[in-house]
């Protein structure tokens, strides 16, 4: 083997473990799902003999499923937006604030990830339920007459998802802001910009790469979240992830469940691509 061939093989060897992992446990199962989505529904078996487009037909002909995709996207959008609004100031503080606060702030930001997802979601049911702490306190203080509908609806799901996914918004934005030379803000100030204007014209646009990454992460995670929506949404509000699992496990319709799963992935991917196009940064190399 000559030297240049060796040079090319070196990096390939390094990425091989990750590539194999992804290939075997992501690409192959995905291909399997694609094939499964075209199989005939079975009678008492997961799927029947032969292939059909019927699973997709069922999806598009029943507005119930389309509506569910729309609901899921909405929950994703709102969760992402709220995470952005809540997370940006925290990210800024962590990147530029006093260093004494930083270690503590870091721990706080990561804290939602330190508790298992099931425990965390049950925790929210204790807080948000009709007989939960929030409703009982507010009723006790005489602020409300009956319980506020905080659970078994999109609101509850969004609250819980924002809580879990906030770190995924904060960390990329924080690292983007840390990468901005503070003298740029000084330069803007010296040219006559107030602190607010200098933030709006300099810091904010330069942190866009972090905002972009954070938004995509949170959005994708929200779309595919299962445990939180199923525990907090209950039977009344279902996201696509919950419906997919219902189809696969409860009603044992593997082909239809696969079609649903793919429709969710495809719509999610389309949204991410459009978002990427809209936030393209010409100034970056």
């Amino acid at each position: 083997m000559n030297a240049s061939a060796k040079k090319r093989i070196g990096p390939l060897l390094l990425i091989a473990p990750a590539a194999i992992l992804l290939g075997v446990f992501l690409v192959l199962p995905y291909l399997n799902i694609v094939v499964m989505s075209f199989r005939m529904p079975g009678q008492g078996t997961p799927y029947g003999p032969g292939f059909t487009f019927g699973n997709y037909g069922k999806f598009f002909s029943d507005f119930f499923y389309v509506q569910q995709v729309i609901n899921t996207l909405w929950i994703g959008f709102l969760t992402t937006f709220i995470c952005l609004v809540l997370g940006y100031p925290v990210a800024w503080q962590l990147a530029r604030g006093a260093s004494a606060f930083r270690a503590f702030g870091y721990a706080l930001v990561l804290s939602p990830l330190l508790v298992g997802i099931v425990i965390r979601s049950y925790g929210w049911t204790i807080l948000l339920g009709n007989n939960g702490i929030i409703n009982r306190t507010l009723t006790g203080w005489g602020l409300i007459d009956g319980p506020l509908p905080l659970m078994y609806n999109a609101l509850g799901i969004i609250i819980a998802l924002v809580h879990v996914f906030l770190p995924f918004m904060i960390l990329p934005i924080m690292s983007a802001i840390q990468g901005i030379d503070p003298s740029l803000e000084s330069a803007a100030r010296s040219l006559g910009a107030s602190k607010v204007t200098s933030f709006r014209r300099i810091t904010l646009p330069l942190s866009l790469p972090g905002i972009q990454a954070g938004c995509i992460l949170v959005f994708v995670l929200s779309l595919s979240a299962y445990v939180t929506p199923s525990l907090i949404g209950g039977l009344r509000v279902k996201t696509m992830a919950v419906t997919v699992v219902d189809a696969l496990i409860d009603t044992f319709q593997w082909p239809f469940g696969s079609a649903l799963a793919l429709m969710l992935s495809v719509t999610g991917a389309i949204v991410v691509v459009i978002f990427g196009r809209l936030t393209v940064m010409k100034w970056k190399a």
Partner: protein
Amino acid sequence: MTEVSIEKLTKDYGQGPAVNSISIKIAEGEFISLLGPSGCGKTTTLKMIAGFEDATEGAIRFDGRDVVHMPVEKRDIGMVFQNYALFPHMTVEKNLAFGLEMRKTPKDEIRTRIAKVLDMVQLTGYSERYPRQLSGGQQQRVALARALVIEPKILLLDEPLANLDAKLREEMRVFIRDLQRRVGITTVYVTHDQAEAMTMSDRVVVMFGGRIAQIGTPSDIYERPANLEVAEFVGQVNIIRGKVGNRVVSTAFGDVPVSGDFADGAELMLALRPEAVELLPVNSGATGASAKVLSSYYSGSLVDYRLELAGGTVVNVQTFPRTRFADGDEVLVHAPADRFWPLGSAA
């Protein structure tokens, strides 16, 4: 055109003053350098003039008006940063327009002023480039243009040439100085590079430990340093010691007359610049102290010698390489009496 007056300016971060009651009067259109080693307070002083740091005490006046409590954006300054601080997400044109937009300048005027300033810094045709598409020297000139296009009261430069290579640095020195003269703007230039300060400034402020050691023209600073620290910081210097007696210091070079009040018998330090010393062949018949060449360094236009005088005094001498001496040669050294500058009593 603005006159800047700094009065008893002090900055204390809580661990003793970083800038200790300094006063400087800067005339309209004057180019002044703050020169000193890192940590001497020169950058802190500049930041206080700009408004990035609050002054603990003292006043900063632009044309008589105290600006100490005025926020940065109201001070009407143009600033050039060490790393240029160009906005990476904006083209050259947008970078230059930024300050004018903040001043609500009409669009047409913005366009004409940008064209004018680009011509001034010789970057016409670069307006659509992003900063990352420019070389270091070009970025430097954009930064300069961005600071000047707003026609500020004063121009502040914070080690603007530190990131350029040696050749470009020398070109930019001349470029900045010419530009400043043409525009006639009052300028404060911070540097730790004495050659920059000397070649560019009308006056140099030498700072050590938060205090002003000396303010003066480049030749004041070089030829008549206020003390040993200044003498050693600005250029190379030989410190010649000798005893005072009857207004004369007896040194290894012979007797040097000194003006000034020095008590007889005191040990005095005299500054002698290496290029002030003449080197002559022993057989030239000239008068001078005899010395031996220890080593020499040839750098094209100049030769640096290390010599040992009688009594073991070692001096550095810089000459044009018209007559060359080899290591070990015996030579005569001579320095005119007026090139010895008394620095005060030796400790």
